[in-house]
């Protein structure tokens, strides 16, 4: 599916009334879900994966973009987040990112959910390998820097 209908909020309707579940999902993003390691509220290691993105334009349009291959519950999480974004003022404190490129100023937010190792082995391994790669790359760069010489020309 490559279609969507952006929601236009016009007139004096309050924000809460505009929540009519008319947000459409655009399956446009890659099928590869970015995953990474994080920590939960108690400090325990946790693997998260991105399942979609919400773009809230200043014109009132709300675009909900979901990755392909999501199950119904994950799509409903994306839709629900978009629906909640209608009646919530976005701010950077809440994880929203402000973008102004392409002449379309907007707020955008990446939707993430935790991943269980037993349920999504690929995502779990991808996050672990990505973290390991980042550590090895950082160590490699630090090793290069340790042998670097600074030449000062008079």
């Amino acid at each position, binding site marked *: 599916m490559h279609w969507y209908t952006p929601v236009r909020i016009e007139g004096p309707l309050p924000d809460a009334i505009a929540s009519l579940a008319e947000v459409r999902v655009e399956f446009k993003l890659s099928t590869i879900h970015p995953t990474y390691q994080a920590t939960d509220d108690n400090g325990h290691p946790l693997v998260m994966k991105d399942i979609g993105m919400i773009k809230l334009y200043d014109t009132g349009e709300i675009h909900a973009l979901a990755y392909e291959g999501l199950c119904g519950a994950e799509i409903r999480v994306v839709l629900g987040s978009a629906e909640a974004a209608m009646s919530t003022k976005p701010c950077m404190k809440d*994880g929203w990112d402000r973008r102004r490129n392409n002449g379309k100023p907007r707020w955008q937010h990446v939707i993430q959910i935790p991943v269980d190792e037993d349920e999504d082995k690929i995502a779990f391994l991808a996050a672990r390998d990505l973290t390991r790669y980042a550590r090895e790359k950082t160590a490699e760069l630090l090793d290069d820097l340790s042998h670097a010489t600074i030449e000062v020309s008079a």
Partner: protein
Amino acid sequence: MTQTTQVRPLSSEVEEATHLLALYDERVALAKAFAVSDRPTGAMAEAVMAKGAELDARCEAFRRKHYPRRYRVLAVQGMVFSVSFTGRTSPIYDGQVS
């Protein structure tokens, strides 16, 4: 096809989450009736606003009782999930599965 991580809430949580989803369904029904009405009235708009305010209050009470370290609890699209301070989502209860 991947599966969402299933969180197993307590029985009291399930009851309260079910109540939240019922409130959400009522709010959606009111909003749709308002949207398709030929002669929308102020009372209909106020009913939608009141139901939304009640849902928000119930969600906040649910968050303070069961998930005080989370930023927000949302009951939408037949699912109750929490959002952390950094915007990470964690499903709590799926009304269409349980």
